[in-house]
């Protein structure tokens, strides 16, 4: 694809510089050589994607403009049901008929906005666990170095965007699964406020921690997707009725001065490499120069929320998987079944205590943000860049080295934007966290950062543009 950005491509489509069919054909051509290397797709929908592209071209020619996603190719994580094909959850244990329900509200909204669904993308089995070489599914690899993993679990969506096989896509995030692969693959990923976007027609992991979030190269692109995705739906009782916003229109609104808290919790710093913290310091300085006031911020109950997220999501996952685990234990991948089975080792009282801690911690974070007068918090998204499949540093693959789960516990919006590269040439992400339903504030600051820097525009060697046949 000539441009990796929804913003630029939607402008080119309207200027007649390219058609949606050309875009989709080029994307498919790119996937023909990239997908076998990177393991992006579980299932490609070539025929229906080309038909959708033709419809988009016809509508645009006739003056019907559905907005910035019109004619734009997207990848969908394969735990989300779609009309075209099966939902495997990358698991031999998954009942194929689960996907017969077809499009849920999100897919309907995206298609209504003219988006072209290219196919279903790889994940970790059931959005949890590790890369699994023992199962007959592709192992997603990082376009910046194919010997390293993408992070999980929205892996194929992240590596497909990073490598130019589509322009945006859907991931899901229960402990960081949108933000982590976004950071590791050098793209932008957003976990919006819990309740802003419906998550029906998606296989749950931890129902009270799950989010379906947009992934793309830039904040602008994620804002365009969120504008379409946001809004309550009767099929998901956790969604909240709120006024709908145009998140693209609000990117350049609001006051210029903003105060941010820089997360200083010892456990986060200790679980991050010195190099990652130095890159993060540079990003913070870039923002400071641009007029963002910075203050140190110790997140209350940080460690309890970090651990509590994993305890609760394992318990919630176990409740969904119990009968299937009983009947199909060995059909699950070993890492997956061992992770989910831990949910059986947590008592009902333990889970209640985790949720009580979650509630007081959420309130304490908000109270402290009020007291400090900060609108957003900043941290690295991860402690290390993407690790090799073989011989990874144990500290780098520790759960402590991911700085995302706390914000699934609070439900606050959290964005990951590229902020540089480590000594191995792997991308690093900065996380911007906001108050509940101030998603526009988070996106605005991320957009401002991307106007100051060009990390999000850098392309890996394994990118569609490297092998385009004109």
């Amino acid at each position, binding site marked *: 694809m000539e441009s990796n950005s929804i913003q630029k491509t939607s402008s080119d489509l309207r200027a007649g510089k390219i058609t949606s069919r050309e875009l989709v054909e080029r994307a498919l051509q790119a996937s023909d050589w990239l997908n076998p290397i990177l393991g992006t797709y579980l299932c490609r929908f070539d025929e229906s994607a080309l038909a959708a592209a033709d419809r988009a071209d016809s509508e645009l020619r006739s003056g019907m403009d559905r907005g910035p996603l019109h004619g734009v190719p997207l990848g969908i994580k394969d735990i989300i049901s779609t009309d075209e094909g099966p939902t495997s959850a990358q698991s031999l244990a998954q009942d194929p008929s689960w996907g017969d329900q077809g499009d849920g509200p999100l897919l309907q909204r995206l298609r209504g906005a003219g988006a072209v669904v290219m196919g279903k993308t790889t994940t970790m089995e059931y959005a949890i666990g*590790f890369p699994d070489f023992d199962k007959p599914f592709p192992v997603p690899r990082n376009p910046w170095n194919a010997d390293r993993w993408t992070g*999980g679990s929205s892996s194929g969506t992240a590596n497909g965007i990073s490598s130019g096989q589509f322009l945006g896509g859907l991931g899901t995030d229960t402990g960081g699964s949108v933000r982590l692969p976004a950071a590791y693959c050098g793209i932008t990923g957003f976990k919006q406020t819990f*309740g802003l976007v419906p998550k029906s027609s998606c296989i749950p992991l931890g129902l*009270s921690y799950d989010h379906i979030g947009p992934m793309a190269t830039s904040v602008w692109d994620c804002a365009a997707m969120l504008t379409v995705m946001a809004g*309550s739906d*009767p099929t998901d*009782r*956790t*969604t*909240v*009725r709120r006024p709908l916003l145009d998140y693209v229109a609000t990117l350049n609104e609001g006051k210029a001065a903003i105060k941010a808290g820089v997360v200083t919790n010892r456990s986060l710093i200790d679980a991050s490499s010195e190099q990652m913290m130095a890159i993060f310091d540079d990003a913070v300085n870039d923002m400071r120069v641009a007029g963002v006031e910075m203050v140190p911020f110790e997140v209350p*109950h940080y*460690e*309890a929320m970090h*651990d*509590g997220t*994993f*305890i609760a999501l394992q318990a919630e996952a176990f409740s969904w998987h*119990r009968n299937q*685990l*009983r009947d199909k*234990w*060995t059909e699950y991948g*070993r890492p997956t*079944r*061992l992770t989910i*089975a*831990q949910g*059986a*080792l*947590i008592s009902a009282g*333990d*889970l*209640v*205590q*985790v*949720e*009580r*801690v979650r*509630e*007081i*911690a959420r309130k304490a974070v908000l109270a402290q943000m009020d007291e400090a007068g900060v609108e957003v918090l900043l941290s690295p998204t991860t402690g290390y860049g993407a690790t090799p499949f073989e011989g990874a540093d*144990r500290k780098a*693959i*520790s*759960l402590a*080295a*991911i700085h995302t789960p706390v914000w699934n516990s609070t439900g606050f919006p959290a964005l990951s934007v590229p902020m540089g590269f480590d000594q191995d040439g792997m991308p690093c992400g900065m996380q911007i966290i906001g108050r509940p339903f101030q998603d526009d504030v988070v996106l605005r600051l991320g957009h401002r950062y991307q106007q100051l820097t060009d990390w999000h525009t850098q392309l890996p060697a394994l990118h569609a543009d490297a092998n385009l046949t004109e």
Partner: protein
Amino acid sequence: MADAQDPSSSDSLVEIQAMLGLAGIEPTGADLASLGRIFPALRRKVDRMYDVDTGDGVTAAIFRAESDS
């Protein structure tokens, strides 16, 4: 992602087997051994949750009787 593992004790293996057995799950011997190594760290994390003062009035979840939000 990996996390801390400890040597398992025969007591904890019995406990794990019993809890999984309640769900009708019979893990393989190798899986049971792995869960045994994971279990102590998991329980330490759970026990730390009780170190947080949650007071008397905080409920875990708020049930709502209305049909939709």
